[in-house]
């Protein structure tokens, strides 16, 4: 589609897109039945911080690159959990491209601040290992291309101005880690490095982040830089989706030299080391640079063959000579016809041709009559030619080749044998490696503020969304017919804080879970299983006969709809607000799934509600 035309109609074509425009245009592009010729692409992103904010920007910039992006953003900071579980939301999404975005500063809060010997390398090595492992695991289940972000230098480096001068500083550890990442990913077919480090460096590290957005929502990129990020990622996604072009076909007049050879003669055209000829000479250099990558060159020009031959052979400043050209069509036919003939002559599809022409009229003719040929959006000023060629993206040579596709199939067959063992080990190993310690205790005056905040603000991992006030909770704490429990979680990297709360009401011989909430950042670690086990044990020791849990559906808590059934609770009946009640008899053997997780060590606080 012509996104620019669409944007003009949508009323934004006259000025650069603002954030609100991106939101509106993205919605329009994603609408069912929206007419376009974009290539649909289901792209999944797993990230160690919040990436969702980028969605509208990605959709619009994806359209600019010919893609209709449908995105899936994985739950916060979940990699192994999503990749290893064949029933995870990631696998159900059936992505056609996977992006992994893991930042070392998200894995270790000291990264960028502290500089104990070797500490950066350790965090980075762990990140690289985890990423490679995830890619291998994913590759055993899917042939979709994987983009792995490399590591950008953070705004703050521990040794400041002379960080680059010290041999094992963060700057050097990062460079080494990026080399290592690239090298290990090269062994896995259909996998590429997404050069996030290059993106941030080019945009400017100092303006990349907005401290407010990080502090409030763990969004690592400022609002102003979202379009830049989206453009870069969209371009990388397009590169792994569309086949690369094979041949650049060039116009001559006012493209490879200034002026028109038919009018100005060989001595009158501008080409040389002085301005304006120098601009065209530099452009010829950029064109020849493409041949180093294996791109073929051809020429299509409305001129006389003999005149053109003379310039190509004899003009002393020409860098592009006849021996560089695989085909030529110099005549007065429509260029669209010539282009198709060149494709036939070279035995490639016309869609493998890219045409660079300064004339909008000619480009219009080709778009109308040979639309499969890719056209560079050439600016009016020749000073912009090199950049237009560089940015068009058609030569981003990372599309999966036929050979690569075969390698992927062989790789998958090999992996399937070890599949079950490998995949069931990975998540457990990962969780065990976190060295988690859960402190269980009763809610009291020291933590009631935080508890009330969790109960009041949690939307997703919230079974009943009952917004008890702090006063309500305080009453439950001192009431013999209620138990109030919290979990505070620590792991290898630090304290996650108080992240889960359970409020239980005792009604006769039933223990009813009134409220069960957990912070997003603790998801995927089985903490909720630990809390439920604790609740069940407390109920049992009180002499309760049944443990009951309710689920009240809202727009935001779909992820916990199956929590109780998955842990072996049976459905008892329906309740108000479209909810469901689940339970099991404490006198029976507890459900097999409900046991204290192996990967978490248990600590009790001074008092536990009973």
């Amino acid at each position, binding site marked *: 589609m012509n996104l620019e035309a669409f944007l003009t109609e949508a009323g934004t074509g006259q000025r650069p897109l*603002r*954030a*609100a*425009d991106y*939101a*509106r245009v993205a*919605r329009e592009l994603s609408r069912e039945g929206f007419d376009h010729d974009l290539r649909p692409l289901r792209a999944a992103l797993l990230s160690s911080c919040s990436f*969702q*904010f980028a969605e*509208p920007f990605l959709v619009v910039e994806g359209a600019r690159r010919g893609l209709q992006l449908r995105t899936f953003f994985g739950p916060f900071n979940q990699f192994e959990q999503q990749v290893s579980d064949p029933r995870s939301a990631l696998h159900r999404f059936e992505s056609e491209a996977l992006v992994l975005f893991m930042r070392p500063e998200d894995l270790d809060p000291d990264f960028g601040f502290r500089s104990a010997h070797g500490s950066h390398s350790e965090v980075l090595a762990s990140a690289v290992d985890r990423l490679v492992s995830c890619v291998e695991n994913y590759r055993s289940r899917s042939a979709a291309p994987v983009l792995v972000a490399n590591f950008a230098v953070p705004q703050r480096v521990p040794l400041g101005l002379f960080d680059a001068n010290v041999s094992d500083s963060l700057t050097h550890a990062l460079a080494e880690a990026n080399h290592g990442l690239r090298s290990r990913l090269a062994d896995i077919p259909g996998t590429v490095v997404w050069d996030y480090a290059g993106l941030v460096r080019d945009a400017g590290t100092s303006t990349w982040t907005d*401290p*407010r*957005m990080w*502090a*409030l*929502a763990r*969004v690592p990129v400022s*609002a102003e830089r979202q379009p830049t990020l989206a453009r870069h990622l969209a371009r990388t996604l397009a590169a792994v989706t569309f086949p690369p072009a094979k041949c650049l076909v060039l116009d001559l007049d006012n493209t490879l030299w200034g002026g028109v050879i038919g009018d100005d003669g060989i001595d009158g055209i501008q080409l040389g080391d002085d301005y304006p000829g120098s601009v065209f000479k530099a452009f010829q250099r950029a064109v020849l640079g493409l041949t180093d990558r294996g791109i073929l060159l051809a020429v299509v020009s409305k001129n006389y063959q003999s005149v053109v031959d003379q310039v190509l052979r004899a003009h002393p400043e020409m860098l592009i000579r006849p021996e560089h050209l695989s085909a030529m069509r110099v005549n007065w036919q429509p260029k669209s016809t010539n282009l198709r003939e060149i494709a036939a002559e070279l035995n490639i599809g016309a869609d493998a041709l890219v045409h660079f022409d300064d004339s909008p009229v000619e480009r219009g003719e080709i778009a109308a009559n040979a639309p499969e040929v890719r056209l560079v959006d050439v600016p009016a000023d020749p000073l912009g030619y090199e950049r237009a060629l560089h940015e068009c993206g058609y030569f981003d040579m990372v599309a999966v080749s036929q050979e690569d596709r075969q390698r992927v199939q062989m790789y998958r067959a090999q992996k399937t044998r070890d599949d079950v063992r490998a995949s069931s080990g990975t998540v457990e190993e990962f969780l065990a490696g976190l060295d988690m310690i859960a402190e269980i205790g009763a809610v009291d005056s020291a933590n009631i503020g935080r508890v009330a905040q969790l109960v009041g603000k949690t*939307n997703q991992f919230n079974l009943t969304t009952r917004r008890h006030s702090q006063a309500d909770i305080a009453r439950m704490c001192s009431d013999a017919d209620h138990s109030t429990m919290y979990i505070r979680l620590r792991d290898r990297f630090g304290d996650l804080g108080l992240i889960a709360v359970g409020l239980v009401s005792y009604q006769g011989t039933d223990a009813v879970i009134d409220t069960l909430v957990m912070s997003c950042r603790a998801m995927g670690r089985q903490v909720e299983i630990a809390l439920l086990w604790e609740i069940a044990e407390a109920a049992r020791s009180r002499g309760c006969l049944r443990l009951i849990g309710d689920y009240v559906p809202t*727009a*935001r808590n779909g992820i916990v709809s199956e929590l109780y059934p998955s842990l072996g609770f049976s459905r008892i009946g329906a309740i108000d607000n479209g909810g469901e009640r689940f339970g099991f008899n404490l006198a029976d053997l507890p459900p097999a799934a409900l046991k204290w997780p192996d990967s978490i060590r248990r600590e009790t606080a001074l008092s536990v509600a009973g």
Partner: protein
Amino acid sequence: MNHIPMADTVSHRLREVMASVFGIDPASIAPDASSALIAEWDSVRHLQLMLALEEEFQIQFEADELVGLRSVDLIEARLRGTQSE
């Protein structure tokens, strides 16, 4: 030429931005609208809204404002505070 009171322009522009971010009809945004009353106004979209307003009105919110301005009347009051004079 009619004099357009500043308050109406702020109100109108605010609703246009909200319509873009939330995908709702600007005319449906009541004066007492807030994040509690509009389903689409969740925490991700709230941040999108605040940053879109920064761009539209060429202002910068403090971090506390980014968190706290969750109703149309609070936002309008804040915006009018910067648009007057």
